[in-house]
């Protein structure tokens, strides 16, 4: 026989139930907050992910006297590193780095050099980007945030070096360290994944150039007076491309 409880609720029981509920809620809160609170209470510290530091200013020094006309090892090295597969149309394909042959109008001296994002300190692409997707890290590396780039191409218009590429068609075979996407803009990252990984710091273009026995591209910390790149720049007059714009580029050229 089922006995039905038809008595009115006991105020004492109701109070106890509410107390139990509050106790459980308190325990749940502690359980949720504990992982965050414990290290602080115990004095332990969580190791933060290493970010860019303004103690460095990464850059490249390119000796045009060592750069060989017709050699495009740096371009191939870069494309291989970042999974850039051309479609054969140079005007719509991504051009993170390209080779240019020059002749001086006065002396007729000829030179060859790679042109890529110059990682400007006062980067016009960063200034004009409406969403802030174009940004400069504390260590001077200029990048594009692929999540907030809306593909307006204002940065392509603003770049004095034509170093930015708009991706006109679907991309495939992407590398995990170099995310790319149709409808967004991209450019040389100075192989930032290598910089951040430490150990193997040299960017792919510099490695490819060295492998080709030309060693025209020197990578390093411009703000460290003891670095090879700073010493080389102090010894010889390194030039900025379009120095008249006073953008304080991170990429400098010798024998331009």
């Amino acid at each position, binding site marked *: 026989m089922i006995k039905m409880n038809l008595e009115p609720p006991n105020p004492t029981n109701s109070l106890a139930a509410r107390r139990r509920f509050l106790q459980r809620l308190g325990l749940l809160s502690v359980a949720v907050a504990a992982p965050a609170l414990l290290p602080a209470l115990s004095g332990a510290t969580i190791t933060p992910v290493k970010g860019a530091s303004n103690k460095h200013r990464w850059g490249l020094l390119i000796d045009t006297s060592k750069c060989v*006309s017709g050699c495009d090892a740096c371009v191939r090295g870069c494309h291989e590193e970042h999974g850039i597969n051309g479609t054969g*149309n*140079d*005007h*719509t*394909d991504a*051009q993170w780095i*390209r*080779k*240019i*042959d*020059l*002749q*001086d*109008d*006065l002396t007729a001296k*000829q030179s060859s050099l790679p*042109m890529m994002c110059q990682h400007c300190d006062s980067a*016009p692409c*960063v*200034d*004009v*980007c*409406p*969403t*802030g997707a174009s940004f400069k890290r504390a260590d001077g590396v200029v990048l594009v945030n692929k999540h*907030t*780039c*809306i*593909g*307006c*191409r*204002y940065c*392509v*218009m*603003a*770049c*004095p*070096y*034509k170093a930015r*590429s*708009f*991706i*006109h*068609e*679907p991309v495939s075979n992407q590398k995990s360290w170099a995310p790319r*996407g*149709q*409808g*967004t*803009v991209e450019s040389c990252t100075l192989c930032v994944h290598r910089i951040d990984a430490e150990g193997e710091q040299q960017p792919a273009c510099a490695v490819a150039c060295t492998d080709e026995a030309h060693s025209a591209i020197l990578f390093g910390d411009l703000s460290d007076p003891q670095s090879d790149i700073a010493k080389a720049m102090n010894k010889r007059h390194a030039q900025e*491309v*379009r120095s*008249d*714009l006073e953008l304080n580029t991170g990429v400098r050229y010798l024998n*331009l």
Partner: protein
Amino acid sequence: MTMIDHLRYATLKPGRLSYGVVLLVCIAAVVLGGYSALTMEHAGHIITGMNNHVVWGLPHVFAVSLIVAASGALNGASLASVFGLSYYKPIARLSVALAMSLLVGGLLVLVLDLGRPDRLIVAMTTYNFRSIFAWNIFLYTGFLFIGACYLWMMMERRFNHHIKAMGRVAFAWRIVLTTGTGSIFGFLVGRNALDSALLAPLFVALSLVMGTAALTLVLVMLDRWQATLLNDQLLGSLRRLFVWFLIALVYFSIVHHVTNLYATEHHSVERYTLMGQLSGMFWIGHIFVGVVLPLGVLLLPTMRLSNTGRLVISASLALLGGLALLYVVIIGSQSTPQMLFPGKTILASRFGDAGFPTYHPSVWEWGLGIGGLALAVLSCLLVLRVLPLLPESQRIENVSSE
């Protein structure tokens, strides 16, 4: 007892065959524009004529045309409420509605031409205030908000006394808006063709020309359906204004190019614009069709044309000329080699750094641009059908305010 001027307004009455034809053509063009945008987003910009030299193509020409025309189309309202010309009052509401519609059309083209139009929410929520583009987003949305308030003040009799103040705000805002649009192009230091602060006043003058032209054509079209909009006083005023706006435009255009010719670094760009591949677009499109012919039609007494006829022809020509000028400014500036190495000649580059890039707009770009224009006209007609923005008669009645 005080007496106030009172106009009765009504919605647009359909019924004419031409109204249906305009509506159908606009709907067809909007559908074509939508299809073009979808196709471009799916396949990528590879199906357009754009490339990494010319990254802003024909959709930008249409979008900027519509945006500057929007600013100028507000003239009708400004002349009534800011400058106190009472004969513009009957068309003031229409002027605001047209301005807002043109801006919506232009912005839609601009957004659908983005590489990632699906990320519009990012553009609306994440701002870099060093970017003129970001400021323009505020200027455009602000223009729509101010326009809506302006229209509200006009339509709600309780707020009629705020019209003048609102008109002043709208007038100032649209001048800043067009200056901002011109500045998008004017502050690009790496491009010799665009590195000039004169582009801002040039755009203001262009907005006055294109906006007045658009307003005139819409007025004449609507007047054919319900003859309550045009009168000799208004037509005469529009004609005089149009002449001054065209003179202002050609003045800034001349100053822009003459100052460029003075600077050696701009010589190659000027040679390209004035004597090169786009010289026809500049001389025939902008100067002859866009300025000389309209001025001739407006001023020559020997032409046996009515005021309406003169205005329709000159407005149509000025709109074509405005498109040509923007084509020269936007496409021409990207079609000249960028000066990477002053004092040196580029011998070879796979990217074609030394050559003149070519650009041929594809059918998808035409579709998107014309779709935006049609959407502007369509939305204006729809607003006129829903809201009482057109005067029922030209007669201004004296009504007791008691």
